[in-house]
């Protein structure tokens, strides 16, 4: 019984939030890693692309709600996700056309691309604040919980319990589906294979008749789509606030690099590693240990490794350790 109580506590405060946050990071890191693999630069504007996608989705959700459209128990925003993806893809197309295409023609160094992407990031951030404003928006209108803590406790009779939010279930399921589709696409379809070929060796790919413009555009569309998914799912689960996407850039890049940058499986694993370790390291284990240990050994302190203030430092620490011990990341990506 005590063991189950401890397990419920950990599920409620670490596993469920960790896997949800990890899924959101994984989707973000997938976009970063794809851009890095195919277009060969670190896209710092990716956080703002997530924000842009989520913003479009919110605007259409409001429009839809004003016409009385609703998705029942699920959030209305899911209906408008495809439209938001379309808009974000078009936006990506424009920044490729007006910013990055020029440097690609000039065959600039990756560092130039990176700096240009920082410019795009600030431009996009400004555009978003201009359109929707800097304040936070809550657009999750579905049923909040599949079951909450109180219901769980009443059902199982345990002292501790965990609740499952609708948004958590949606996030984890969507991530599993999206990742599977993406891997099938990259490994089995002709277009996916041409993207991988382009990523492996650009010159050889050109010689074998792959249209580089098509590959570049496709990469942007996929990255934009993933960014929109990540932004909307994050906003549904937590809150949409334009400021936080700059803060999310660090864990997203850590996830991509820890997993092995340029490697899609690495990005997903990296996302979960970063998210779960942030929570495992900053969690206070007092109650958990009280359940697991005999009464005489019950801890008096909070049993917390690091204060929650240092949550973001955890992704830094992991990043540094990985770069020292295994610079290519867990799944052997490209070295930077």
């Amino acid at each position, binding site marked *: 019984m005590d063991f189950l109580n401890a397990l419920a506590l950990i599920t*409620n*405060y*670490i596993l469920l*939030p960790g896997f949800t*946050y990890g899924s959101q990071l994984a989707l973000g890191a997938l976009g970063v890693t794809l851009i890095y693999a195919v277009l060969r630069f670190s896209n710092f504007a990716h956080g703002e692309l997530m924000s842009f996608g989520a913003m479009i989705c919110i605007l259409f959700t409001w429009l839809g709600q004003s016409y009385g459209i609703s998705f029942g128990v699920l959030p209305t925003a899911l209906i408008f996700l495809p439209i938001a993806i379309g808009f974000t893809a078009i936006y990506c197309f424009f920044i490729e056309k007006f910013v990055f295409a020029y440097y690609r023609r000039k065959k600039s160094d990756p560092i130039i691309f990176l700096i240009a992407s920082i410019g795009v990031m600030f431009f996009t951030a400004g555009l978003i604040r201009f359109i929707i404003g800097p*304040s*936070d928006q*809550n657009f999750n209108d579905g049923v*909040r919980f599949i079951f*909450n*803590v*109180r219901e769980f406790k009443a059902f199982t009779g345990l002292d501790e*319990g965990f*609740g499952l*939010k609708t948004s958590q279930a949606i996030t984890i399921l969507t991530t599993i589906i999206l990742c599977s589709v993406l891997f099938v696409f990259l490994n089995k379809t002709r277009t996916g294979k041409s993207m991988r070929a382009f990523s492996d060796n650009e010159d050889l790919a050109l010689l074998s008749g792959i249209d580089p413009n098509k590959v570049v555009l496709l990469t942007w569309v996929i990255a934009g789509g993933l960014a929109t998914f990540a932004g909307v799912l*994050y906003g549904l689960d*937590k*809150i949409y*606030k334009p*400021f*936080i996407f700059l*803060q*999310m850039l660090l864990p997203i890049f850590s996830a991509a690099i820890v997993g092995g940058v340029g490697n899609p499986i690495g990005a997903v694993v990296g996302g979960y590693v970063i998210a779960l370790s*942030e*929570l495992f390291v*900053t*969690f*206070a*284990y*007092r*109650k*958990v240990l009280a359940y697991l240990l005999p009464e005489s050994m019950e801890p008096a302190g*909070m049993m*917390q490794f690091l*204060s*929650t*203030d240092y*949550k973001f430092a955890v992704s830094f620490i992991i990043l540094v350790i990985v770069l020292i011990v295994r610079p290519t990341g867990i799944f052997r990506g490209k070295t930077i």
Partner: protein
Amino acid sequence: MKKIFATLLALCLLNTASFSDVKLGIILGFTGPIESLTPDMAAGAELAIDEVNKAGNFSMGKVSGVRADSTCIDSSAATAAAERLITSDKVNGIMGADCSGVTTAILQQVAMANGVVMISPSATSPALSTVEDNNLFFRTAPSDARQGQVVADILKEKGLKKVAISYVNNDYGKGLAASIEENHKAAGGTVTISAPHEDDKGDYSAEVGALAQAGGDILIVAGYLNSGGKGIIQASLDSGAFDLFFLPDGMIGESLPKDIGSGLNGSIGTVPGTDSPGAAKFGDMATAAGFKSGPFAMESYDAAALMLLAMEAAKSSDSQAYKGKIMDIANAPGEKIFPGDLKKALKLISEGKDVDYVGASAVELIGGGESAGNYAQIEVKSGVNETVAYR
């Protein structure tokens, strides 16, 4: 182009150079994090000035207010604005500033150097109670040390012994959390954890995880209702960590119960407020004048009125002369003065009689010249903040 510019400049100069005999500087954060509150506060102070002008029996002639921007957070901008008020507008007293940080900066660098009286309507930091001020600084707002006491009293009455505190990581949050903790412990309660949170984050589940492990009967959220404070409450409800919350003044507003929903019902809070007849009267006067009696508007009216009445009592608009009169005017004995009674007050003072300025916010200055503090006890009932008692 040059001509237009010159004309505009001349117009600006004409506007600022008014021909009043007494000038009050109104320095508030018209831009910055409390910009939504300051227009009503300034209107409150200007209402008192208008009333004195209309009364016509102020012995030093006409009064005018000069607005300046304190920005609430940028001390150098605020001191520059205050410097301008004193050296170029030659104000006889300053109604302001608003936020504790800039108020301290203006007091130490400008008001004390030039010997000008300052009455702040809204700076609540406990540090301002003990700051060196040459008796020039007063406030019609209570110190947060007082709010800590009120919070501890309410907790004791409700029988909530074990409490957890989550505070926003700045001067306001830290000061308030420390004051609550001290008073609650003195009253025999225990504080299981007092941990900071940062504003403007997307996710507060880790913070709430730590709070939940410490446990407690109620979570005191000393933060801001539109930012981190709301995030902490939402995450606590989601994870079932706490279902009862204490909301100090930074968390009281119509938007919070609306955003959180039914989970907030039953939570309690405190916000400066009074059931004195002055408050209702001021509300009517504000509506008639075309503004809302929002947070700290009453305190602003009182600050301006106190300053003008003290000048009348000293028969001088010189800060050194009237600074000693402010406490006499604000406190008993004497005839009670409510908003709208300024004409009567001026008459009584000129006849040499005592007045006890009660004003809109039931002013009672204690210690070095700060409001004793009146708080409304709030309870959230079916999605609405309801005042259940006054303390």
